[in-house]
């Protein structure tokens, strides 16, 4: 294992007394067998130190009881996430005002009830058709229509004229024999268009238990949409469902964002007592990943994008997330 930076001819090498060496640096040896042995010893020593430290902490916790320092949390990618500048603060006045003047201001101001039109490509496969039927049951006030060879722009224009508030296109790539892999959500009349990659679709028929759908308007739970982009996407997805849920139906849709993947789940809940709640999963489950958010209705050639996923520029760190 070569050292990371080779000392330049004029400069002193790293083994000078100026900077103390990391323990790993002592292990560098050109002979692989010797190197292996040294690493093994180092690892054993480190694990021993860890065990002793843990024993000490446990002792301290037992002794102090309630006054003990809190338990150390393990590092996960979520805890090590690079903090995002655009994280929405709850008391931020400017964001609140921007939300009021947004494309979804009408929905969140309880003026426009959503009316969704759901369609797919020209000849959707049977699985996609089943998925669309299920989505129509899951999202209230949805109509499923065949595309009839019309273009996305034309469909958006006509649907806006007819009073629909949202348009969803399910895209499938038949050459890959996968059921459906894309979802385009266009908010009408001039709202943003979000393009998602759809994956891991599981229909209710494939789930183990027998399901019963009711037609009560569901509640919507949005988890973990922290950044500005996440905030906008969360509002966009929430605007698909009616703003007045019927709590009697005990139906809940969860859109959970984790590491830029949005998981959609549909449950029926029942509170057994104050602390315990039983969940039964109904309906389809699928995963969405945002590919682009475009300002205005779908116009890929001449339109402006609010956010576009540029893999090599944006995803250079495993700890960096955008939603």
């Amino acid at each position, binding site marked *: 294992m070569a050292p990371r930076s080779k000392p330049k001819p004029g400069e002193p090498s790293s083994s000078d007394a100026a900077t103390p060496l990391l323990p790993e640096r002592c292990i560098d040896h050109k002979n692989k067998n010797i190197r292996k042995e040294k690493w093994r010893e180092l690892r054993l020593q480190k694990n021993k130190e860890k065990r002793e430290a843990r024993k000490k902490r446990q002792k301290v916790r037992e002794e102090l009881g309630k006054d003990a320092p809190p338990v150390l949390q393990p590092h996960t990618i979520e805890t090590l996430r690079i903090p995002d500048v655009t994280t929405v603060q709850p008391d931020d006045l*400017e964001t609140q005002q921007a939300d009021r003047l947004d494309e979804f201001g009408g929905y969140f101001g309880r003026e426009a009830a959503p009316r969704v039109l759901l369609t797919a490509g020209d000849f959707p496969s049977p699985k996609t058709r089943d998925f669309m039927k299920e989505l129509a049951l899951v999202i209230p006030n949805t109509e499923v229509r065949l595309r009839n060879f019309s273009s996305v722009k034309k469909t958006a224009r006509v649907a806006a004229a007819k009073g629909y508030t949202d348009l969803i296109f399910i895209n499938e790539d038949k050459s890959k024999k996968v059921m459906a892999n894309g979802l385009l959500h266009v908010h009408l009349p001039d709202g943003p268009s979000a393009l998602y990659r759809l994956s891991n679709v599981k229909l209710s028929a494939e789930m183990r238990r027998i399901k019963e759908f009711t037609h009560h308007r569901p509640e919507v739970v949005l988890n973990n949409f922290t950044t500005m982009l996440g905030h906008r996407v969360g509002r966009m997805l929430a605007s698909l469902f009616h703003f007045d849920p019927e709590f009697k139906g005990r139906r809940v849709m969860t859109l959970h964002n984790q590491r830029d993947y949005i998981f959609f789940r549909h449950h029926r809940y029942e509170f057994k007592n104050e602390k315990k709640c039983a969940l039964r999963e109904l309906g389809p489950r699928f995963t969405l990943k945002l590919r682009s958010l475009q300002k205005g209705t779908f116009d*890929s*050639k001449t339109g*402006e994008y609010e956010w576009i996923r540029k893999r090599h520029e944006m995803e250079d760190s495993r700890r960096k997330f955008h939603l």
Partner: protein
Amino acid sequence: MPRHCHNVYVGAETGVLKGINVTEGEVQTSNFHNLTALERENEICSMCWGDDEQRQVLLGLRSQQVKVYDTVQGTFTMSRQLSSGSGPVIGLAKHQGAVITAVESGIVTLWRYAESERVSVNALTTGEKLCRMRQSPADSAVLATGGQENDLQLWDLARPEQPVFRAKNVRPDMLDLRVPVWVSDITFLEDARRVATCHRHSVVRLYDTASGQRRPVMSVTVGEDEPLTCLSRTHRDHQVLVGSGRGRLELCDIRMGRTVLALKGVAGGVREVYCHPERSYAASVSLDRFLLLHDLDTKKLLHKVYLKSRLNCVLMRRNFSLNPEDAEEDEVEDAAVQPAPASTGPELEDEEDDLQIVEEFLDVPPEETKKKKKRKLPKLKISGEDVADASPKKPKLPKLVDMSKKKKKKKVKAGESKG
């Protein structure tokens, strides 16, 4: 922090004007609006400097209002509701103390006080909507307009019936189809006879208005399907900076006919780009709510500022610099030039500045305007004497004459600070 310390001004979609003070180490932002009283109709659609000293900022709103913000006083001094055509104000300029507005429906108006003196031009004889109106740096009466299916036209306010120059579309493509036109931004190059336009169909076109050729001299395709939304000339005459709706910022060399450099850091569509005319700074503002400051020579991203609202317009001061020595030079030069206008009487001078937009309250004495005209750029003269006497605020004269000491100093300093 005194208000005139801001060196970059940004207009947002929610109608908020933001002033940003960018220094080498840090960035400070302030909002100039009451955040509880925002309306969608007050979206800032265009911005420009109100005067040569860059003390006033003119804002054009979606509701066809024009507002004036005074940077020294730190307040909005004037607001005027205009009614000409329909649509937001997409272009602003000033000519002899009066404001020129261009609206989306194609009407470009010079708002002089007397209604008989108002000049109105209908730029949208063909096409769907007007997208941009820019003023020539050489002659403030010459305007360039362009829009969706409306190619570049140059208008002279003295002759409003016919455009001075009307561009012709390129020849049909290899399938013999007419090439679509959607001019999204226009810029005059330094000699003011060459005009560059960028199109939403991913081309940048260069026109030579004095040559008699109506077709573009050069047509550069930037990327594939990149809807170019904004354009700015840079400190180098042969290069322009283009921003696209997909978040690409590219430095396009018009001589070579290709892109030279792509700047990184934009995630959303670029709304406006503003390059400093002499130094290598480029400010860009995008829909992902960030203001980006790049250095075109070193290709680095100097600052990335999050500004919470979707941003529409950006302006940079002439004395903008992250190098403190440049700032000192500018101060010295500013101080040297200031005594001239102050000699007419400081109080009167201020009043004139404030109320110049609509000359309802004071008749602008002809002397004042003449003096102001003097300070504007004269026609091109290639002679050493003119350069020596020229104030630093005039744009660069051709390169032959421009190898002045000032530029050499800057290069050395740039090497030291960035080396």
